[in-house]
């Protein structure tokens, strides 16, 4: 099946070409699923969001006017579908409109341990995927969606901003906060797993509790 350009794909979709819809699914189901999975932290619900997203897209195709990229349009549907489910859950959510603390004077962690030079057999242990998932699940929703789209799915700042209705500056601020929190999470894991000690590299001299500032 030849890959269409975006405008060809939109035209084929509107003409009801089943190959075109298959292409849409093949191109974008991964990101739709991962966004839903990380927001809802539940594979079953993520699959339901995947189905609802493509069904909604299928029904709404006639109204797609091409003002955004097709992927942006689709991921917005996915995000809103997942968000509606999230809001039905009893867990209180942080509001998307909640102002971010813009004070960049976040405290540097007291202990700086260098686990970046650990050998792959430790870094890439069997628990790694679970540890990565737990880290994302622990993020506030406002940071999670930005992190998934930017760093896991590799979308641009501009597209992430368009999907989530944020400014690009806000995307960058949230991405940075998410990364710092996840770095902390991995540091805690690699430290508690006993992986980091003397092997943590010659610069691992922060274990005396001294602050970096």
């Amino acid at each position, binding site marked *: 099946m030849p890959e269409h350009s975006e405008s060809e794909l939109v035209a084929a979709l509107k003409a009801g070409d089943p190959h075109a819809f*298959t292409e849409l699914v093949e191109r974008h189901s991964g990101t739709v699923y991962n966004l839903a999975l990380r927001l809802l932290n539940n594979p079953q619900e993520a699959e339901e969001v995947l189905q609802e997203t493509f069904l909604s897209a299928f029904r709404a195709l006639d109204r797609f006017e091409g003002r955004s990229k097709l992927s942006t349009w689709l991921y917005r549907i996915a995000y809103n579908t997942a968000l509606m489910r999230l809001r039905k859950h009893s867990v209180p959510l942080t509001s998307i409109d909640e102002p971010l603390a813009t004070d960049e004077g976040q405290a540097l962690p007291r202990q700086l341990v260098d686990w970046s030079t650990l050998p792959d057999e430790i870094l890439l242990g069997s628990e790694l995927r679970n540890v990565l998932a737990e880290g994302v699940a622990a993020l506030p929703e406002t940071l999670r969606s930005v992190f998934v789209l930017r760093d896991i799915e590799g979308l641009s700042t501009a597209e992430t901003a368009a999907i989530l209705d944020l400014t690009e500056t806000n995307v960058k601020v949230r991405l940075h906060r998410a990364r710092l929190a996840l770095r902390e999470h991995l540091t805690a894991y690699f430290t508690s797993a006993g992986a980091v000690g003397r092997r943590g590299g010659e610069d691992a001299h922060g274990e005396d509790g001294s602050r970096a500032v």
Partner: protein
Amino acid sequence: MPMGRMGPVPCDEILAALSEYLDGELDEQLCAEIERHMAACGNCRIMVDTLRKTILLYRTYGHEELPEGARERLYAILPLKRAA
């Protein structure tokens, strides 16, 4: 990070700029300031190395494949005319 300041850049300003630094979004002068700082500050070096590794691990291993059969279940509920 304010430009043109005198003296060394404090660690918290380095920390605030690290994502943009790692994403290649800072201009040369700011990159040079960060690199000068890191040459002298072991903690900030660890911070940037572990932050870079965090991003790399998520980029490489953070994406989950669709569950087995999910694609087929999706196609089954879509009202597509089956292509030959």
